[in-house]
């Protein structure tokens, strides 16, 4: 079995079942052309009445668009009543095919899926042969919207009771993509808003900087960002409710601190079991006398390096770093104050119980300590006895020990902190969603300031005033080229050639051997500048062959369309589109009449030179 149906068999089958006229969507232009060639030797000829009708209809189109008169496909289209329609063809030829189709003279048209939206003519039947489509150099599955757009061409109002979408497999087809596409809902539209340099310049030309945020807020992008933010806000509300049982909201910032506090206490508790022999106020202190803790003695202050208990001694001992890097050993009882201040102090196993680096740092930190330090509130659990005044005072700064919800807090600490983290995350995301466009705008503003298109007060500079008129891709590169005087003295053909290489975004190969030295050196300059601008703007492909082709067309008015096509392997339709895009770019340069009269004139001249032959036939 062949991997896919032969085009002649396909059309015969459709005809036999009265499923014509049909549009057959194929993967590539080449597939369309090959399908047409497949009819070359087939015994597949229309009755002469229909052939004449096609000829007559074509004549009418030709009257308006003479360029198709010589089209090589005319004889075969006339003979078999089938045509190809794809981006490789001239627009005028496509108009002719569409016209034939609309008038019902054709049985089928082979078209590429890429142009499904541009195929603005219906048929009784649509034939689908693939489930993926080439998009920016890779194949991706058709979306439901695309499948429906393609299948939707089937069934002409007023000419058909029903339309037919026929799937015929080719290798690599995934039937489920198509069945899902046919039976499913089309995808939701997602905003693709981007902020370009010309957009920034034009906005700032017309509106003061402080109004821009409001304008960006009108975009569909912001509308959808707000929708997302609203969903998060709902989640945030739900979180607030969930967090209610976890004590008073105001103290939530203390939870983390309390956790550390508590952790230190517990941690030490296990390592240094307190003995009954120690009085309660000493026992309560022990968990806080960990390495790095600042403590006060009757004379001066110190930083705890380690806590230990040596044989034969009733009390726990401390190794303390004192002023001037002195290290002393003292019993816990000699500590008068425990401050609410610790420093990082990883313990080591040998004297001085920390690394030399840490030791030096701590010595320094001890020297730098402020005169007044907050005391650490330490709750001494002696039943019935009132708390010492000093502790009560400092507890105002550190609410946990006396907080009524302390035990709940301790118990639910993990849950509460998870909720809290989630809350922070959502708040941050909402913030980002609400301001992301504005940030992106500001980023662009900074670049434009750096390059001198905007003043520091975001006014357009003299350069910005004209640069805002260049509203095409690679606008930064183009305006920088103009500023670097790259085009000064360049003749129209050179200017057109360079702009063509900027405008052309297709990587299909096309051969053109001869590149003039002038073009070559200018292209080199453009390439270098494009590279240096790459942090701010994606560099264009800068194909030398398309530049040369356009330069040639402009430089040599005697060159015919056929002659031009012979110079390259590019398809006619691609050459046409290349020239049309170049015209678009040139017309933007042409608007710089007042600031760059020479350049504008050169662009205007190039425009008139490009517009000849086929390029004159359509607006």
């Amino acid at each position, binding site marked *: 079995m062949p991997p896919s149906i032969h085009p002649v068999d396909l059309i015969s089958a459709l005809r036999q079942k*009265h499923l014509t006229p049909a549009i057959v969507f194929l993967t590539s232009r080449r597939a369309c052309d090959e399908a047409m060639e497949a009819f070359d030797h087939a015994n597949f000829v229309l009755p002469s009445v229909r052939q004449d009708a096609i000829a007559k209809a074509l004549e009418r189109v030709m009257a308006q668009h003479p360029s198709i008169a010589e089209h090589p496909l005319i004889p075969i289209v006339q003979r078999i009543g089938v045509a190809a329609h794809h981006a490789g063809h001239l627009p005028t030829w496509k108009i002719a095919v569409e016209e034939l189709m609309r008038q019902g003279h054709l049985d089928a048209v082979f078209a590429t899926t890429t142009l499904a939206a541009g195929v603005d003519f219906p048929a009784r039947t649509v034939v689908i042969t693939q489930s993926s489509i080439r998009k920016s150099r890779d194949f991706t599955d058709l979306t439901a919207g695309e499948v429906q757009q393609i299948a939707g061409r089937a069934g002409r109002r007023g*000419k*058909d009771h029903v339309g037919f979408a026929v*799937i*015929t497999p080719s290798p*690599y087809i995934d039937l*489920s993509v198509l069945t899902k596409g046919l039976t499913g809902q089309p995808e939701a539209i997602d905003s693709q808003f981007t902020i370009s340099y010309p957009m920034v310049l034009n906005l700032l030309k017309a509106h003061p900087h402080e109004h821009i945020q409001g304008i960006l807020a009108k975009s569909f992008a912001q509308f959808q960002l707000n929708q997302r933010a609203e969903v998060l806000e709902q989640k945030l509300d739900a979180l607030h409710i969930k967090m209610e049982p976890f004590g008073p909201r105001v103290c939530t910032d203390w939870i983390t601190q309390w956790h550390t506090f508590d952790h230190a206490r517990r941690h030490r508790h296990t390592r240094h079991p307190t003995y009954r022999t120690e009085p309660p106020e000493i026992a309560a202190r022990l968990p806080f006398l960990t390495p790095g803790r600042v403590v006060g003695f009757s004379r001066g202050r110190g930083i705890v390096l380690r806590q230990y208990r040596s044989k034969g001694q009733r009390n726990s001992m401390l190794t303390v770093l004192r002023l001037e890097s002195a290290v002393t050993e003292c019993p816990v009882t000699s500590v008068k104050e425990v401050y609410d201040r610790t420093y990082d102090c990883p313990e080591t196993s040998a004297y001085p119980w920390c690394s030399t680096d840490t030791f030096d740092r701590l010595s320094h930190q001890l020297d730098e300590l402020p005169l007044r330090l907050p005391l650490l509130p330490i709750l001494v659990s002696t039943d019935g006895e009132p708390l010492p005044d000093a502790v009560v005072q400092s507890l105002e700064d550190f609410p946990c020990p006396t907080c009524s919800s302390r035990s709940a807090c301790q118990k639910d600490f993990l849950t509460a902190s998870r909720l809290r983290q989630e809350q922070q995350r959502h708040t941050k995301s909402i913030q980002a969603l609400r301001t992301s466009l504005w940030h992106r705008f500001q980023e662009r503003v900074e670049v434009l300031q750096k390059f001198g298109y905007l003043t520091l007060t975001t006014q357009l500079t003299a350069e910005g005033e004209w640069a805002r008129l260049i509203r095409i891709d690679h606008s930064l590169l183009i305006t920088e080229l103009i500023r670097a005087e790259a085009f000064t003295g360049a003749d129209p053909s050179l200017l057109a050639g360079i702009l063509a290489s900027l405008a052309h975004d297709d990587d299909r190969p096309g051969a053109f051997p001869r590149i003039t030295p002038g073009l070559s050196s200018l292209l080199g300059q453009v390439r270098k500048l494009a590279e240096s601008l790459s942090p701010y703007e994606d560099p264009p492909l800068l194909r030398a062959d398309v530049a040369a082709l356009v330069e040639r067309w402009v430089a040599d008015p005697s060159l015919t369309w056929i002659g031009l096509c012979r110079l390259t392997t590019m398809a006619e339709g691609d050459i046409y589109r290349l020239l049309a895009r170049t015209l678009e770019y040139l017309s933007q340069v042409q608007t710089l009449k007042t600031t760059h009269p020479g350049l504008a004139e050169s662009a205007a001249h190039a425009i008139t030179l490009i517009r000849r032959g086929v390029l004159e036939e359509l607006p």
Partner: protein
Amino acid sequence: MTTDELEKLLAQQPVAVLHRLARGRVQRHFRAGKRRLIELLLQHSSQNRAGFESDLLTLIGERQSGPTPGSSRRPGAPPGAHKHVAPRSSDTEPSDPPVSLTEWLQGLGVPAPQPFVQDPWQVEALAAVSETDVVISVPTGSGKTYVAIEAARRAMEDNRSVIYTSPLKALSNTKYAEFSKIFGPDKVGILTGDRQENGQAPLLVMTTEILRNLLYDAASGEIDVRLDTLGLVILDESQYLADPERGVVWEETIIFCPSQARLLLLSASIGNPQDIADWLTSIRATPCRLVRHSKRTVPLRAGYLHPNGRLTPLFRTLGIPQGHPGHLHPEAKHLFIEYEEETLPSGRARR
């Protein structure tokens, strides 16, 4: 997972899953057949087995439980979140017999000519557009052009000018010719980057980019007289809003569209037309009207044509079984399985 198990699991997956797995792993994978693709994937996975397996399992999980791409949006759900069209379990085959080819082909032919009667949605849209902005989202071939033409006619009768934009130059040219025939050549003009034809005409056809540029020039003070009398802006094929490169132009155009002009957005079926209408309502002077329906005027039937020339219905039902991609016609299913098996590149044992 052993290599054999992995291979078996891969073989059970539809080609689409394999392609998604291959993305970024295997170059030019889209040209390989299913068998070859599995080979390539296995080869590749030997280097990072864990990552590969977890990707595979995620993809399988997504297929089984995840959002179906073609489902409608819940109101208030974030863009991109979809709800299920139908849970898998309910997607069981119906018990009534599948349609026959004869039934499927019945009704084929040309209907008798009928006098032109506006569709109800066309009436609704035309009534609305005289008062406010309108978003139309209806299937391809429903007759959106008719609404555009009538709305333009009314605005012009009211001495207001009209701008019609399309995403493609080719479409602009077609519409320019069509409108010239309807309104007379002196009433219609076309604007391109470097050329104006009848630029002072009351109805101007252009691409959306050109209109965006016009609006920027108007905003910065280089007032174009036509914008004062502009009564209607028609944006055809507005689903281009989702185009990765050019979508932004539609947004800019809508944001800067003069407030006295009505906006008429014509779009093929899209998933969230209500969002578009709500957006317009939120930024424009008057609340936007949404006119939508998803029923095709000319009903559509789907068929399957085997490479050997055999034609069968694609689905069990005569029409398209909305929401039930699995309701395949048994014959089409059988033929397609046969096709897949036969086109697997040879050289490996077939299961």
